[in-house]
């Protein structure tokens, strides 16, 4: 068998096996180099897999040659490929550009352990995206969560610990709910393989445990995905984590939970449970709308830059869910495309914040006064990513906003209400992005702790790479839209 055929497994194996090596390497520079190399390799694998999925459709891989449902299978469809691109891409950009920022935030004696945890997180998140086994998802989820707790707890001050604790409690509850749900499904069907479940659930749809399982799984994953009102862990975790970690997590971690949610609900329950599409929509759409409104409103008045962006994430997760809750092709396309575009916008913004934090004393809005004059390039990158978050045409964010509004208009009266909420939230985004921009260009510089000059060049290059990607995918959005359309088609196969 050629190496190319093993890529689905290597996607997880490369970071997972590099992680223990890092512990042996010890030296911070060496550890960084190895971690970056592993992450870039994973990114290359993800690109190859995406190309294969686009070319020949979904990939199927049997671990150790054991056939499903006895063995574990890896299944990569368009949605999974998109997730892999996000996870490994965000990790690579963050690692390549974030070395000096991380060296500032973390004790050098533990830096190699930190990088090991990073790779384990990448392995866990990638594992969720590739596996075709429900219990496997739980295992990888725990792997990635435990590693993520470590990454967040590495934050520069002690508040990171309480933030981590909050996340740990809520994350564990979410994972447990998911496990309970999977257990119930297993009890009723005797299988853990997604594809197998899809067929076997049909025999037991009238049984209460399946309904209970659907509830547990949806709520548990919603907790992981920080769906309003279960988002409480997210702002603190994002705020107090090291800046580079925030950029990485904001780009992909919650989206992976949404990915599992979509897979479970659309593949396993949709089409098997009576009226599931309706219940799914009616349960999630109001939460999505509330999340959009509350997240945007809080972001408008928040004074801490990272917390502001974190609340914006709560709103953006609402966009994704809103699109999914339409349960239409246009809606799911918009949702999946927005996962990609929001990762670009928010990842770019958090990277820019990391760059600015290298040169000013804090990340409150008052701390960044006048950085536009001292760090013109970094700030310009921040403006571009911010424009993408708002949805200015010509940026990636505009594409998904367009798709989402278009999907909303197809939904009739309720859809127009949703469109109004989305537009209001876009206007709120104008306000909160503008607060940052205006402060950066016209604010008074804080008196103390000012170092003149741009951020280190790798970080600046990272910011600009993401900023340019925002423009590139705004002008030629074929890749995310093609993946999103394909994913939407697959997700809808059980619906009329």
């Amino acid at each position, binding site marked *: 068998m050629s190496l190319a055929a093993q890529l689905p497994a290597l996607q997880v194996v490369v970071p997972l096996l590099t992680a223990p090596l890092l512990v042996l390497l010890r030296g911070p520079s060496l550890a960084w180099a190895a971690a970056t190399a592993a992450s870039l390799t994973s990114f290359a694998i993800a690109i190859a897999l995406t190309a294969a999925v686009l070319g020949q459709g979904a990939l199927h891989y049997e671990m150790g040659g054991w056939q499903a449902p006895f063995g574990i299978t890896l299944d990569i469809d368009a949605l999974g490929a998109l997730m892999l691109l996000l996870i490994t891409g965000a990790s690579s950009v963050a690692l390549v550009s974030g070395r000096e920022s991380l060296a500032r935030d973390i004790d050098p004696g533990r830096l190699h352990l930190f990088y090991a945890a990073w790779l384990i997180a990448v392995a866990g998140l990638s594992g969720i995206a590739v596996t075709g086994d429900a219990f496997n998802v739980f295992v990888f989820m725990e792997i990635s969560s435990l590693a993520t707790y470590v990454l967040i707890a590495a934050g520069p001050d002690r508040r990171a610990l309480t933030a981590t604790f909050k996340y740990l409690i809520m994350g564990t509850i979410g994972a447990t709910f998911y496990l309970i749900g999977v257990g119930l499904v297993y009890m009723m069907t005797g299988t853990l393989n997604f594809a197998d479940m899809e067929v076997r659930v049909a025999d037991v749809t009238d049984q209460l445990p399946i309904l209970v399982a659907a509830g547990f799984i949806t709520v548990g994953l919603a907790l992981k995905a920080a769906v309003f009102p279960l988002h409480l862990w997210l702002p603190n975790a994002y705020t107090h984590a090291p800046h580079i970690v925030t950029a990485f997590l904001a780009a992909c971690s919650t989206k992976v939970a949404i990915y599992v949610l979509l897979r479970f609900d659309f593949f396993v329950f949709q089409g098997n449970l009576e009226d599931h599409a309706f219940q799914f929509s009616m349960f999630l759409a109001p939460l999505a709308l509330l999340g959009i409104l509350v997240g945007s409103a809080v972001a408008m008045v928040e004074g801490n830059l990272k917390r502001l962006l974190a609340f914006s994430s709560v709103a953006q997760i609402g966009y994704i869910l809103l699109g999914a809750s339409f349960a239409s092709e246009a809606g799911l396309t918009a949702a999946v495309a927005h996962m990609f575009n929001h990762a670009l916008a928010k990842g770019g913004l958090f990277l820019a914040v990391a760059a600015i934090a290298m040169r000013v004393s804090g990340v409150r809005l008052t701390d960044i006064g006048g950085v536009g004059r001292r760090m013109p390039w970094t700030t310009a990158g921040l403006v571009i990513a911010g424009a993408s978050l708002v949805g200015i045409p010509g940026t990636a964010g505009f594409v998904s906003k367009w798709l989402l509004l278009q999907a909303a208009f197809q939904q009739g009266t309720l859809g127009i209400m949703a469109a109004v909420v989305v537009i209001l939230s876009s*206007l709120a985004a*104008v306000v909160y992005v*503008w607060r940052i921009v205006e402060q950066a260009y016209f604010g008074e510089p804080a008196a103390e702790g000012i170092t003149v000059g741009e951020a280190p060049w790798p970080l600046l290059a990272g910011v600009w790479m993401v900023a340019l990607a925002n423009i590139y995918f705004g002008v030629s959005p074929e890749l995310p839209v093609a993946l999103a359309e394909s994913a939407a088609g697959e997700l809808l196969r059980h619906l009329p």
Partner: protein
Amino acid sequence: MSPADTILVALLLPLVGAVGIVLAGRWPNLRETVTLVTATSLAIVVWSLIPLIMDGGRPGVVVAELFGGLTLAFSVEPLGMLFAALASALWIVNSVYSIGYMRGNNEKNQTRFYVCFAVALSAVMGVAFADNLLTLFLCYELLTLSTYPLVAHKGDEATIRSARIYLGILLATSIGLLLPAIIWTYTVAGTLTFTPGGILAGNLEGPAVGLLLGLYVFGIGKAALMPVHRWLPAAMVAPTPVSALLHAVAVVKAGVFTVTKVIIYVFGVENLFAEPSGGWLLYAAAFTIIAASVVALRQQNLKRMLAYSTIGQLSYVVLAAAVLTPLSEIGAAVHIVAHAFGKITLFFAAGAIYTASKKTELHQLRGIGARMPWTMAAFTIAALSMIGVPPTGGFVSKWFILAGSFQSDNYVAIFTIILSTVLNAAYFLPVIFAAWFSREPEGGKDHGEAPWPAVLALCITAAATLGFFFFNQPVLDLESQLVGRIK
């Protein structure tokens, strides 16, 4: 060079110029040369398209395929041709003026000023040549964003507050109303490409037409239809060349140009005429004309008075488009040109007065005609054009709008135009009278004309205002293609 290439060159040239301006930033003379060369080449490129369009050619180019059959595409039709030709020609004059103004006032950050100006012009070309609503929207937003630094140029507290109003209103209306309108159009019509006769005909009827029209007209905040006009007086904190080219010509005309284009190519004139629910636009425009003129009467600051005058004059174009007769559509296009010459002259004069004497208020202008005869002569000609007195350009467009209104016996439009002519006279004539015939108060600053580039520029545009009265046939020929044969 094929016409398609010419379009691309017209779009890219100002951007290349912007890069050149950045590179030449350290040497002011070289930098200004780059601006002038860019402006001149742009005008040559744009004007070279005119013969083709006159002969009925409609060249186009697709830049990128987006999603769902949407494209980023540009094409040239008579209305856009006119707008682009106007903006590119006036950019040259305005650049000459800018040199005199910016140096005469020792403004800071002049490189940024010229760069943003060039980017804004690129966006204007994009708006003028956009082949579909999506492309137009993209360029429209780029225009808003690239003019923000120009409005906020001074950078002090009051300026930033005004600039925030500017950006806030323009972005909020475009994202909040225009974008939904475009998506709605796409949902019902399945296309966004500007098509003669409109794309909504047969796809949308009843009150929804009026609602969609409202989303468009108020979403296009740059057209400054009340109540979304507040950004225009706020934008007057910008240096005068910005007010002159952008807030008397390029930006505001991009607004009314878009409104006209939407009425002609999206709704379709005949389709909209047959649909009573769109009739409110006429009244909204009429109200804006009268109200803006009344507010202009009460202004004490020269630039603010001109801003309210602009709001009124912009609604002339909207009113003319909303009358929905062939002659009035031509009148709308002609008024875009006629008002441009006149208003840019007025702003040039206001800036020249400020540069020479630091005077900004109306009551300070007594007797200034003796000190600045050229400037005030130009001011007088332009003001007469605003009122619509022959032999100025303003008379021509008013003629067509009135003729169009009589075609459909539209007495609301006729009455509005007459009343607003009286009001225009009421706020311009006292200023002119005081400038020429009142005695200058004692103890004022001793000054003469502004630097010569500024005076030269305003003389050119004043001459154009007069010249347009006599030589308007090419514009009429071009725009009569808009409505087919004049009935």
